[in-house]
């Protein structure tokens, strides 16, 4: 089982669409995929279930916020108890005959408050206590994911919020890989730099504290950037328009791995798919435009699988 965080410092880059469609395509190909929605906006959650269903069945006790809260209250529930299978995408996968699976741990709009709560737990009277608190707080999710039978899933995709607060750091500490969706524009590519710096600082700090902790249970972390996938592309003649290409090239020139595949902007398909609970890639293709959208997701997924092979087993 591999764990990958999907993140960009900059919001509005299509992160949730990438997560939902990648997860769905991999499930369609037979993989068992768990999506973990760590973004307080809960966009991934609402891409698979309706808000009223969320409110009735999950909001109070069955979200990742409830899990964080339960630890603070010393009544921790296993994350595995929060996993469910969204019905509409499940029906779509079953009708395709695949053996794959797509499950979800939903988010909560109040997850943003968890960051504040976790921050209060970072204090300590001595440096040793501060370091111990830091490791305990930042390892919460990594420890929690151990409740999941590792033979149950091939991949966990964590949809991270567009910030670098403690919840996000929890996701990165738990992850072996980082997938970065980005728009090829000036501010979005700056977001990639912010993220690279923040990840580097987190790894340095965490591993420094882990080394001084001295426990073999607290191993160093080394999340690798799997790649940058460019989204919301305006294509012309089979490639991004000229105004976008320099930003893609600059990212490559900075030495970051960049997926050859890219995903186009297409509001006709991406804008309303979430409200029906089935990602674009699983819908029947009705025309050439939709086929292009689906083919791009398929191509990206193929590249993603290949890139995953470079991560630690």
């Amino acid at each position: 089982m591999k764990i990958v965080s999907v993140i960009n410092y900059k919001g509005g880059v299509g992160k949730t669409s990438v997560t939902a469609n990648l997860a769905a395509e991999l499930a369609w190909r037979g993989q068992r995929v768990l999506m973990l929605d760590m973004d307080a906006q809960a966009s991934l959650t609402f891409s698979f279930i309706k808000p009223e269903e969320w409110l009735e069945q999950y909001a109070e006790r069955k979200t990742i916020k409830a899990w964080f809260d339960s630890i603070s209250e010393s009544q921790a529930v296993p994350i595995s108890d929060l996993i469910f299978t969204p019905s509409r995408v499940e029906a779509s996968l079953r009708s395709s005959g695949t053996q794959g699976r797509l499950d979800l741990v939903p988010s909560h709009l109040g997850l943003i408050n968890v960051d504040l709560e976790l921050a209060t737990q970072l204090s300590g009277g001595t440096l040793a206590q501060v370091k111990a608190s830091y490791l305990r707080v930042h390892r919460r999710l990594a420890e929690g994911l151990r409740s999941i039978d590792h033979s149950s899933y091939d991949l966990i995709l964590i949809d991270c919020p567009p910030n670098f607060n403690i919840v996000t750091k929890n996701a990165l500490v738990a992850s072996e890989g980082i997938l970065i969706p980005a728009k090829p524009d000036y501010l979005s590519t700056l977001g990639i730099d912010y993220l690279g710096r923040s990840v580097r600082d987190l790894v340095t700090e965490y591993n420094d504290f882990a080394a001084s902790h001295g426990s073999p249970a607290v191993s160093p972390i080394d999340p690798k950037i799997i790649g940058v996938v460019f989204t919301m592309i305006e294509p012309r003649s089979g490639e991004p328009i000229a105004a976008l290409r320099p930003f893609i090239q600059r990212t490559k020139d900075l030495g970051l791995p960049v997926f050859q595949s890219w995903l186009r902007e297409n509001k006709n398909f991406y804008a309303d798919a979430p409200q029906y609970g089935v990602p674009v890639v699983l819908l029947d293709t009705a025309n050439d435009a939709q086929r292009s959208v689906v083919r791009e997701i398929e191509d990206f997924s193929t590249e993603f699988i290949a890139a995953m092979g470079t991560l630690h087993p």
Partner: protein
Amino acid sequence: MSKKPTSFSTLLKYLSKAAECLTDEDIAEVAAGRRRLILTTQEAFGRSPGAEAKEIPDFGVLIASLKSLETRETAHKLLEDAALNRTQLAQLARALDLPTQGSDNVARIQEKIIETTIGFRLTSNAIQKKG
């Protein structure tokens, strides 16, 4: 061969060369019929045909030099010293796969070229706190 076709073919060469200054967006707009091309003539400032082409520097060397610099200021000086006119700057931008707009003046094209060759790396280093 008569004189007229030779002049006409020369004219077509000039037109082709002038079209290189158009951006992809300009070309698409013209092709779609939303914009039209307007041809005018003006004094050639005493240059003989082909003189401009001979003065175009080696873009490969220039690009490599720009990428090797460490500040925007030195990159700007290098471009100034190269004394490229707007057409040549647009050609340099095209060599970098960098789009320019019809409204871009020399300073703006220079800035685009500098950002694409050296500026983006300085920006990245600043954000990532790399010295």
